[in-house]
């Protein structure tokens, strides 16, 4: 089928959303062309492929574009079901739970971390961001429980959705969000476990390089 057609990923090195797609493609051993985007000067290809949001990541496959990282990961999983199925094919309830928790990462965790670096330290809104981040991390910690992965015994959809954010633990600490090893030790152990997979190790950002990047973002877009 179309599975053999060319695959292109429009992305940005530091984006945890783009990294999800890179991890999924690597897990499925799909060859693709990676095109780094300059978001300060968006390419024709990006604007044409994602006219609604003009954001990365965008997956181009068989002449069509798919946007939104979680949708891209699901599309990858459905188009290349093996190896490494990310969502259980025959368990609608497990699929639904996985989608819920992946959305939770987007709606709660990403939102808190953005407020954490954008807002002015010391302000009540920043204090709230710190509290909300702790809440999000402890909720995810509880959801993981004693399991090896959010997918149970196998690396799956929620693991892909969350693992790029673990590179942000160092940044959270620097911005007063707390020490991950104390707040969510299971998540920290889980992150190490995931990083043993080549797909993850190759994709996720170096925490220190990421922190420098976030400082740059704060200087450019943060509250003055």
């Amino acid at each position, binding site marked *: 089928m179309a599975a053999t057609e060319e695959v292109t990923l429009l992305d940005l090195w530091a984006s945890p959303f783009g990294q999800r797609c890179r991890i999924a493609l690597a897990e499925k051993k799909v060859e693709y062309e990676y095109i780094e985007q300059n978001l300060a000067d968006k390419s024709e290809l990006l604007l044409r492929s994602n006219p*609604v949001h003009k954001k990365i990541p965008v997956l181009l496959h068989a002449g069509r574009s798919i946007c939104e990282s979680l949708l891209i990961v699901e*599309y990858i999983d459905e188009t290349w079901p093996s190896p490494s199925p990310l969502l259980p094919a025959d368990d*609608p*309830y497990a*699929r*639904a739970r996985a*989608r819920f928790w992946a959305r939770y990462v987007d709606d709660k965790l990403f939102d808190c971390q953005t407020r954490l670096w954008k807002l002015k330290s010391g302000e009540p809104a920043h204090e709230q961001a710190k509290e909300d981040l702790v809440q999000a991390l402890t909720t995810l910690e509880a959801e993981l429980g004693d399991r090896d992965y959010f997918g149970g015994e196998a690396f799956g959809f929620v693991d892909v959705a969350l693992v790029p954010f673990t590179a942000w633990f160092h940044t959270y600490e620097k911005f007063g969000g707390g020490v991950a090893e104390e707040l969510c030790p299971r998540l920290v152990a889980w992150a190490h476990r995931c990083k043993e997979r080549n797909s993850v190790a190759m994709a996720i950002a170096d925490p220190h390089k990421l922190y420098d990047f976030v400082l740059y973002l704060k200087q450019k877009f943060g509250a003055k």
Partner: protein
Amino acid sequence: MAEKGVKVFGMWASPMAIRVEWALRLKGVEYEYVDEDLANKSEALLRYNPATKKVPVLVHDGKPLAESTVIVEYIDQAWNDGYPIMPADPFDRAQARFLARFAEDKCNAALFAIFVATGEAQRKAVHEAQQCLKTLETALEGKRFFGGDAFGYVDVIVGWIAYWLPIIEEVSGVTVVTDEALPLMNAWFGRVVDVDVVKATLPPRDKLVALNKARREQFLSAAA
């Protein structure tokens, strides 16, 4: 003792809850509806959805799910020999999910902004909403419903607007959708409210108008 059957925790005026009812009714699934008082949430709701504490929640044979978009996909897969809600092809599914996310993230925010504002801020919000709806409208070209000939996933997720928007317009004193500005949307509105499962579940108009009038007054006086 295993809990059997289907329960929906919702709220009579909630567009998110009504989606779940539409999906279940399309599949011909019998369910018990529990109407929540959101100012005084039931112990059962909090137990079934501790992560976000929101309605709707679906409980199927004792297993809970939250997030209406996740629930609707689950219903489609759990009763997969019934009425097809999602498209069959992975790319079409990605497109459907993308549109639904766009409507949820952008359109809902714009509609809410109209509801809580007056004057210039409201005029801007109306313009925003019209832009969002224009984007959605392009997916209706040449079709009766977003799903094609039949009411499908995007119709289930976005269909609430067909009934709620005229009420928002009335309560907020604005016009958003007209035949001139958004002809395809307007025509689709008419088709949606005529669908059997929709007709069977819509809350009484006068009750909904009264509730939203009171809510708008609350927002405006809080902002003053």
